[in-house]
Structure formats: structure tokens, C-alpha cells
């Protein structure tokens, strides 16, 4: 019996621990607020009305600027400043990008537990607005019009694009804060110049020439290592269908992405697949894959795997972001592997119909929102205070670090790292956790920012790299299809089925799982209609006409 009693005592102790642990979250939040104001209040013992207000708790969910770098540490100086100067206890959470982030936000939304301030995240490029519409329709996000007056400097620099504000305006009120668009038209078509030179080839200008060069790259050992280990083209699926990494093929036929913005008119707005030229572009895709000149892993690769492969010299033709291609930290591994390797930007290929479009300019921008719950709890003013601080006094701290320690400012306001310890420089990998908010809330693309973010440099092999001049300027000067209106199109109700039918159908043709013939293509189009393609097109046309975007 004694032993039973012992067991009982131990059990009660364990259970009380478990219960205490379960109840734990409630305790600190209840206890903390009285403690915090007490500290400043005590020395003066001033009458109660003059004591500073209790710090406001703000939860903020943002994506990372550098996903692999992690969040800032708990003792980050910015947290102290925000607490002491702004009276805000900031809880900053980094959420994953794309689908994972969207799933997390949706789960929080379903529990009516969205954070106070958050970045709207989406699986699909440009899908952020769709998700904001969802949250708006459910009454989970608050109008932010009143905030603009509370943060004049930020509004002037960040929220000055009326087109973007209009996109986030529902029923007369603005429901999202559109971050300044990232640098537009920043991706492009590039080729390994050293491979072309080694095989004595000219850069391709048409789809046929592309196939010929890609074939040579695959079969004629362009890197001269005596092994059959190269492919012509590298890609991965990014976006609907085969994704935009094959823009150089589809652009030559004027059928970039899903919607036909090239031939859009008030009476006609269709899916690109209806354009007979899409079929021709598909024939090129089939030919490329049949010839085995595309890295065969492309349908399963992730972005990181794709990027690892061009750095390993696996293929010589691709569509890539200028910074991912040429910024120092990204280019270094490639330079180490191939000191003589170099990527040359190419203009759009010219199709048989003479068309040569480069890509779709769909004006990407991040969307931030304030939850209705935060506004109900009276936090809007504090959020505006925080955002204004980030755009003013906190700008350099959150964007680059501490002046004199992590960066220097010259008299013109440009950033440099002369005399700064290498590991402490704002651009060092060690410093990345401290500037995680920079792409989300800090930068707005001033000249000083752009030159600080994409500086010219010399590689170890002595190659002069000029990311902006060599790549970005070239890409931006090409013929892009304006497709800003794309963001207004809402996905159909059966999105998962429709998207699957569309993506799967196209990929199956490209990989040769289904033979591409006029009949099988017609069958595919009929299948799409069965999934409600016509209704989807009509709805899209309606939305764009109503917005006056079809001219």
C-alpha cells in the first residue's frame, strides 16, 4: 500500500507539471503587462495618467529576404529600440514562401487568428491579391486608408503607386499595403558564351537554331572534359504549364504564360492555348525534349536544385534572374568551378511569324495586410508607428545595420564598406539575419539601394562583373508584354482540378507521354472546356473590361 501511495504522490506531481505546462502560455501574457509599465513608473511615482502607455504587442509575419539565413537573434538591438522608443513589443515571425506560407496563413485565417500585420503569401506568382480578396470577403482584414496619414514618409516613398493601390481597393477602401514592386523585367535569356566559343557556334536567334545549339551543347562536349555530362537547356517548373523558364520558346510565338495579353481586346480575351501559335510553340517544346537536349530532371527540380546545376556546368542555356545569376555571392561558386565560363544575355528568339516577345511584365509586388482583429484591439496606430519608423529612423538599421560598424555612408548617401571588417559588412552572410526585413518593409528601390545591393565587383579569376549593366539593363530593354491586369483575374472555383488538368495536359505533351497531334490537342482543349475554361475566360474578360484594362 505504501508503494501505491508513493506512486500516487509522484503521479500527482507529474500531472501538476503537465497541467502547469498546458496553462503556461496564459500566465506570462497576463503577468507581463503590469510588470512592464511598473518599471518606468516607479522612479518618479508620478500620478497615473502621465505614466507611459503599456507597450503594445504586435505580431508580424513576413517572408524572409534570405530564406536560408534564419531570423535575427532575440537580443537584436532593433527589438530594444522598437520597445523603448515606439512602445511596441514586436514579435517578428518569418514564414515560409509560396505554398507552405500560404497554408500557414490560411490555417491562421481559418482559426480567425491572423497575426496583427502580415505579408500575404501565395503559391502562384501574383496570387497574393487573390488571397487578400479571400481574407477581405471573410472579413478578416481591415481597411488601411486611415494608416496613410499616420505614416506620411512611408506613404510618400512606398505607397505612391495608384495602380497598385487600386488593385487592393475593394468596395472603396484599400485593404492591403502594396510594397514597391521589385525591380521589374529582371529575368532573362542567357547562354554560356565559352561553350559557344569552344564549339565555334553563333548564338541562336530562332527556335530552330536554339534546337541546333542545344543539341551541340548536349552532344559535342562543350566543356571539353571528355565526358558526356552536359545538356543544352536547363529549367524547372515555375508557374502554370511548363512555367516561365521556357519563355524564350513561347515568346517567339507570342504566347507567354496563361492569358493572351498580346491579342487582348475588349471583345476577345482568351487563354493562350486557344491561339494556334501555342500549338507551334508546343511542337518546339516536344522537339527539344525528344532530342534529349533539356536536362531530363527539369520537371522535378526545385529552384535551388536548378541553380546548383548551372553552377556545376550542367547546361548552357537558361532563363534566370539577373541577381541570382550575377550577384557576387550567387556567381562565386560558378566562377570557382569555371573561371573561364561566362553567361551572355540574349535577345528574344524570333518565331516564324516574326514575333519576338521576351517575357510577361506582370508587375510583381508584395502585399501586406492588417488583420481586422488587430484593428479591433486598437493596434492600427501602433502598426503605422512601426512602419513609419522603419521607413525613417529605422531605415538604415533594418536595411544595412549600424553605420560605422556594418556600412559607411558617403556624402552623396551611397553605401560602402571601406574599412569595414569583412564579416561585419552588411553584405556578409553573417549579417543576413539582421536585415531579413529589408526586401519586405525597408527598401523601395532608390539608386543608392540598388547600387548597394547589386554592386560591381571583380571575381577571384579577375573577371569584371557588372550585374546591372550587363544583365539587368539588357533584360529590361527587351520587348516585354505588359500584363499588369493579370493580377485581377480570380482563380475558378474548381481551381485545383482546372489547374491540374491544364498543367498536366501540357506537361504530358511536352514529355511525350501523350503524342502531340492536332486531334489530341483539340481533345485537350475540349477537356479544358469541360473544366469550365469558357466560363473562366468570360469571367476574366468581364473583370478586366470592368476595370477598363482591355483596350
Amino acid at each position, binding site marked *: 500500500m505504501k508503494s501505491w501511495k508513493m506512486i500516487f504522490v509522484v503521479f500527482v506531481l507529474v500531472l501538476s507539471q503537465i497541467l502547469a505546462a498546458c496553462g503556461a502560455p496564459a500566465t506570462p501574457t497576463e503577468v507581463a503587462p503590469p510588470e512592464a509599465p511598473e518599471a518606468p513608473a516607479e522612479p518618479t511615482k508620478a500620478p497615473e495618467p502621465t505614466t507611459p502607455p503599456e507597450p503594445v504587442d504586435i505580431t508580424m509575419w513576413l517572408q524572409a529576404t534570405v530564406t536560408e539565413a534564419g531570423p535575427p537573434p532575440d537580443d537584436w538591438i532593433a527589438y530594444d529600440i522598437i520597445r523603448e522608443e515606439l512602445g511596441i513589443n514586436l514579435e517578428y515571425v518569418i514564414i515560409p514562401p509560396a505554398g507552405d506560407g500560404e497554408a500557414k496563413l*490560411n490555417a491562421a485565417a481559418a482559426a480567425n487568428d491572423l497575426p496583427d500585420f502580415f505579408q500575404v503569401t501565395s503559391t502562384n506568382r501574383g496570387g497574393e491579391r487573390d*488571397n487578400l480578396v479571400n481574407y477581405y470577403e471573410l472579413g478578416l482584414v481591415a481597411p488601411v486608408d486611415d494608416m496613410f496619414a499616420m505614416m506620411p514618409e512611408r506613404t510618400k516613398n512606398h505607397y505612391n503607386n495608384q495602380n497598385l493601390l487600386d488593385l487592393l481597393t475593394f468596395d472603396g477602401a484599400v485593404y492591403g499595403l502594396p510594397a514597391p514592386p521589385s525591380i521589374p523585367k529582371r529575368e532573362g535569356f542567357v547562354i554560356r558564351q565559352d561553350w559557344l566559343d569552344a564549339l565555334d557556334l553563333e548564338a541562336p536567334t530562332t527556335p530552330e537554331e536554339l534546337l541546333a545549339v542545344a543539341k551541340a551543347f548536349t552532344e559535342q562536349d562543350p566543356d571539353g572534359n571528355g565526358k558526356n*555530362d552536359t545538356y543544352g537547356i536547363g529549367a524547372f517548373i515555375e508557374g502554370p504549364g511548363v512555367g516561365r523558364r521556357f519563355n524564350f520558346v513561347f515568346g517567339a510565338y507570342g504566347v507567354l504564360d496563361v492569358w493572351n495579353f498580346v491579342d487582348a481586346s475588349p471583345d476577345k480575351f482568351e487563354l493562350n492555348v486557344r491561339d494556334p501559335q501555342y500549338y507551334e510553340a508546343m511542337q518546339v517544346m516536344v522537339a527539344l525534349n525528344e532530342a534529349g537536349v533539356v536536362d531530363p530532371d527539369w520537371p*522535378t527540380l526545385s529552384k535551388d536544385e536548378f541553380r546548383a546545376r548551372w553552377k556545376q556546368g550542367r547546361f548552357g542555356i537558361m532563363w534566370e534572374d539577373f541577381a541570382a545569376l550575377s550577384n557576387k555571392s550567387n556567381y562565386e561558386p560558378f566562377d570557382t568551378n569555371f573561371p573561364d565560363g561566362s553567361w551572355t544575355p540574349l535577345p528574344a528568339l524570333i518565331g516564324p511569324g516574326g514575333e519576338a516577345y521576351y517575357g510577361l511584365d506582370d508587375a510583381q509586388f508584395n502585399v501586406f495586410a492588417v488583420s481586422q482583429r488587430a484593428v479591433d484591439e486598437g493596434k492600427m496606430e501602433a502598426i503605422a508607428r512601426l512602419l513609419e519608423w522603419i521607413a525613417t529612423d529605422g531605415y538604415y538599421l533594418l536595411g544595412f545595420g549600424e553605420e560605422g560598424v556594418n556600412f559607411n555612408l558617403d556624402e552623396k548617401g551611397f553605401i560602402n564598406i571601406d574599412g569595414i571588417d569583412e564579416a561585419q559588412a552588411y553584405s556578409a552572410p553573417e549579417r543576413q539575419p539582421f536585415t531579413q526585413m529589408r526586401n519586405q518593409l525597408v527598401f523601395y528601390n532608390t539608386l543608392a539601394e540598388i547600387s548597394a545591393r547589386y554592386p560591381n565587383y571583380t571575381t577571384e579569376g579577375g573577371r569584371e562583373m557588372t550585374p546591372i549593366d550587363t544583365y539587368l539593363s539588357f533584360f529590361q530593354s527587351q520587348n516585354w508584354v505588359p500584363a499588369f491586369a493579370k493580377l485581377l483575374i480570380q482563380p475558378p472555383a474548381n481551381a485545383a482540378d482546372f489547374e491540374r488538368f491544364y498543367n*498536366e495536359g501540357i506537361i504530358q505533351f511536352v514529355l511525350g507521354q501523350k503524342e502531340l497531334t492536332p486531334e489530341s490537342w483539340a481533345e485537350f482543349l475540349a477537356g479544358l472546356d469541360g*473544366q469550365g475554361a469558357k466560363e473562366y475566360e468570360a469571367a476574366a474578360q468581364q473583370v478586366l473590361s470592368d476595370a477598363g484594362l482591355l483596350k
Partner: protein
Amino acid sequence: MTTKVLALPSKVPAAEKLSIKKLLRTMWRQRWLYFLMTPTLIYFVVFKYGPLWNAQIAFKDFKPLLGVWGSPWVGFEHFGTFINSFYFTELMANTIIFSVAKLVLGLPLAVIVAIALHETWLLRFRTLVQTAIYLPHFLSWVIMFGVMLVILSPGNGLLNAIIERFGGEPIAFLTSPKYFRWVVILSDIWKETGWGTILYLAALLAISPDLYEAAAVDGATPLQRIWYISLPGILPVIVLVTLLRMGHILEAGFNQIFVLYSIPVYSVGDIIDTWVYRQGVLNFQFSLATAVGFFKGVIGLVLITISNRVAKRLAQQSIY
């Protein structure tokens, strides 16, 4: 005669009373056992029965602001949406194929490995093998995908290098509908079989060594010992595992498929859970997602009940 008839009904309540009293008394006598059980019971109430309340959104048009209770009822609409969805048959087929194949191929293999480990007399070898086969269980599917890409890639994968060495054409295992199912099933077996042996090993160790000794004295061969002692000894565990797996027949391993599949193999790889992720979670149709979960639960319950009966009748084994 009459007294008997009269006595019968009066006896029944008495017996009931007695049994309740008896039950309470037994419970009191075993109160410490019940007490030890409370954390588990609390776990089930909080994490399993509590959330059942929220399952009602399967029959509602769930709006977070209105809450679970306040959202309007829509009846079986979401079930209809799922069952009438374009890919329903294919999703069901893929799910069941993966589930059944993993069970049918994975379970016997785990039993065989467990018996082999049990039979071996080289203790050090046994420990080594056990560690090696448990290891993949602790790798996440994301890591496994990396490993599989290195092995299966048609470009420079190990397996394809071997195929090419023997004059074959490289095979795109991960993107070919012809091979993808096998990739899923075999990779699951590779990852989980080792871990699955633990239960059977434990059951084998529980068999009295006397039986083996007696059999050896009687001249039984090792195979006869396995057939007549080991297998019948672990049969209850095999039945238990199979029955429990029947309850999860419509769960074919979301993590695995989600990491491994890609558009070219949707037709043979898309399962109920990945569809729910895309249509329910990403498109903010939580009611639909819940309805599908409910549907899976009901099917699982029905299957577990039927198979329990079948097992009871055929193998004289059951879980309740």
C-alpha cells in the same frame, strides 16, 4: 411455474444493480490503474474527441468570423463537391493502390526481416543490421527525395548509370507514370520496413523459449520452428497491425507523395490528401477539406469494423 415467471423479471434488475455495484467495486479496487490511465484519457479527450466538435464544418459553409457554430449549414454539399470532382475516381484509385500495396508488400517483408533477425545467432550482426534498417525511418522525405534524385535521376543517377553501362536507355523514374508508383511503394518500404520490424521483434521475444527448446528436442527443423511457433506466436500482432492499417486505408502518405510527385505523374500519383491540400487548404475551402477528412474517417471506421469481424471469424483474432 408462475413464481418462476414472476421471479425472472425481478431478478434482472437485481442482477444489473449487482453488476454495476460490482463494476464500481472492481474499479475502486483497480483505482490506481485507472488513475495511471488518466493522462492518456485526457489526451484523447483534448486532442481527439474535442476536435470532433469542429468536424461539423464539414456540413457547413465555414466562415472564420462566424465561428464553427455560427457558420450556416449546407448539408452534404461539400461531400458532393468531392465525390463529383473531376478526378475523384482517379484519386480514390491512386490512394487505395498506394495504401494496399504498402500494406501487402511492406508487412510480410517486415515480418520476414523480424523473423530473420530473431533467428540469427550472430548478435553483433543483428545489432548492426537493426541500426542500419532503422536509420532511414529517421530521415524526412525531403532528405529522402535528395537521396532518390541522386540514385534515380535520368541524367547522372546511379541506377541509370548502371542501366546505361548494360546498354539500356536511362529511365526517368520520378517523372514517368509507368514507374512512379513503384518508386513510391518501394521507397516507402525501404524507409519504413526496418522500423516496422520492431513490433514483430518484440512479439517474437515474448514467445517462451521453452517452446523452441521442446521443438528442437522433438527434432523440428528451423523452418518448422518458424512455421509452427514463431508465426503463430506473432499472429495476434500481425492481425492487430493489419486491422489498424485498415482504418487508415485512405491515407496513402501525404508527406511522401507531396515531396515526390510532380505534374507529369499526377495521373498515377495524386492522392486524396494532396488534392485536399491544393483545393481545400490552398484555396481556402476548409469545409471541403474537413468533409473529405470526415469521409475518410467514416470509410476507415467501416473497414476496421468489417475486417475485425472477418479476422475474428477466420483467425480467431480481433482488436475488440
